[in-house]
């Protein structure tokens, strides 16, 4: 409740307990707001060519400099934040739903269903994400849809494995057996009794999958297999900037640093969530 009524208090108490997570949470909120509403800010037009000199260094007018077409780079980075977060969040959210469902079904029904689902997860897990990216780009062509598919393939086994193993240990517990004896249908058991108990594990996995999804999306865009020009993602901006690395390093550095900060904020928030859900206590050895 405190979190909703008095967010600043909740923030300060987090800051006192764990300043690293507080920094991560703040960065994440700022970046997501920038991604959602940044294009309303008076920071210039992302698409206007020759708004200034070409490859100009950072200045008051162009805080991140200008690119090779004289476009102001800051609004382009804001667009990139939007694309990177949106694409990976979309892909991870879809994958989380599917993976949770599959993992629950496998862990609850066991037997042949479990074998098949676990095998499929193993198969998907055995490909490095970027080689799947090359394969999908070869089959369906590069683009945003392909990037979403690659993230889904890479993230699905993460959800299936965790949900399956938690469900396996849950389904022998007394309250599940009691529900079965009372005649509850499998659908009801999974939805009402298992799902609330695996939600924590799913949320933890969600943050890691989101950070991995952002890495994959930006890596694909960096290789030219993800977001295509004239659209921009942080990875494609870095690709564009790295061509002028020696003359205009601010292009590559600004997009690279913003991207790293974005991924790090997701990771730090994920750590905080995990610490809250399953705290690991240390102890001294003397």
């Amino acid at each position, binding site marked *: 409740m405190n979190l909703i009524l008095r967010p600043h208090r909740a923030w300060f108490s987090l800051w006192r307990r764990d300043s690293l997570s507080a920094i991560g949470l703040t960065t994440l909120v700022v970046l997501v707001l920038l991604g959602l509403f940044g294009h309303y800010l008076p920071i210039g037009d992302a698409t206007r060519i020759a708004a200034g000199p070409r490859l100009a260094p950072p200045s008051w007018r162009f805080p991140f400099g200008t690119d090779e077409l004289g476009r102001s780079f800051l609004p382009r980075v804001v667009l990139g934040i939007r694309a990177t977060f949106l694409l990976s969040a979309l892909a991870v959210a879809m994958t989380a739903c599917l993976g949770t469902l599959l993992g629950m079904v496998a862990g609850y029904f066991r037997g042949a269903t479990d074998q098949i689902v676990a*095998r499929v997860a193993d198969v998907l897990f055995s490909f*490095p994400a970027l080689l799947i990216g090359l394969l999908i780009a070869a089959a369906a062509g590069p683009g945003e849809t392909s990037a979403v598919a690659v993230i889904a393939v890479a993230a699905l086994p993460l959800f299936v494995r965790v949900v399956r193993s938690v469900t396996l240990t849950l389904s022998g517990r007394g309250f599940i057996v009691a529900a079965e004896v009372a005649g509850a249908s499998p659908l009801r058991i999974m939805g009402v009794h298992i799902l609330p108990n695996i939600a924590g594990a799913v949320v933890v996995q969600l943050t890691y999958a989101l950070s991995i999804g952002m890495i994959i999306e930006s890596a694909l865009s960096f290789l030219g297999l993800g977001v295509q020009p004239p659209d921009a993602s942080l990875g494609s901006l870095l690709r564009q900037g790295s061509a002028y690395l020696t003359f205009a390093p601010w292009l590559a550095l600004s997009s690279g640093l913003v991207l790293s900060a974005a991924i790090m904020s997701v990771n730090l928030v994920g750590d905080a969530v995990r610490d809250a859900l399953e705290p690991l206590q240390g102890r001294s050895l003397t």
Partner: protein
Amino acid sequence: MRFFLYALSTLASGLVTLFGAAALVFASLRFVPGGYADILLGPFATPAAREAIGRRYGLDEPLFVQFLHWIVAMLHGDFGVSMVTRRPVIDEFLRRAPVTLELAVLALTMALAVGLPLGVAAGVAPVKAKRTLLARLVGAFGASVPDFVLGTILIFVFSVWSLWLKIGGFAPFSEDPILNLRTMLLPAMTLAVFGAALIVRTTRDAVLRVMTEPYITAAVARGAAPWEIVRRHVLRNAAIPVVTVVTTYFGFLLGGAVVVEVLFSIPGVGLYAYNGLGNRDYAIVQAGALLAACVFITINMLADMLYAVIDPRLAASGAR
């Protein structure tokens, strides 16, 4: 005997996974809209050319038969022919494999050298200690800065101040070991940062989990020296999750670190597969993905057997 049975079941499930991976790669290029001939020839192909391709690759046969032919050909070492050079793809991959292997081994060594000691040190320290913060920072930083960002920054720094290390101009280890190391250290470092983060996080978690076990309390109560407790009780019991991430990480590295190889122009299998895509030479992409999965699955099978050596209870219970 128990171990033998355990190894056999590991092998069997590995083969099933491998079969699934092969089916996926096969399907990925056969079930696309337009079909294989369209991918090979592009949109402006004449019907005659289509038919010729169809006959050459046996596309007029039922899918299942095609799949069988494909599998049998691969078992004979035939992974297809490059459409550009007309040479067997597998030869090209084998020629480049040592480069990727060297890169992977270098990166893994660096990652382990940083990750293991820091992870164990942070795991046995109280949660508020300085090294815990350091471990969390290394973990968060390494898992967050993508390899191409780090690589770009390193290229920028080292292209301004050369500092002995070199970017590009790769030479094989057998010809010029010194030059080879000068070109390989930066890419290996770029890859190692993520691995180090992975290993720090996993090791710290595993050690923290072991530390709450009753036998650690017992050892502390007996008055055993801290180092002795770590060596005899903690390391072995915390080893399995660490072995899992190390083998996973190594398996992915061996599949070809596409981004880093492209960025630093390291002529390994990842760069070859990437260039194959650029040349629309899809046999290379297909073989690259499949070989990466093969290597990964093999490494994982070995890891599964290693688990049973580390913890004999696993083989005894038959659990995986």
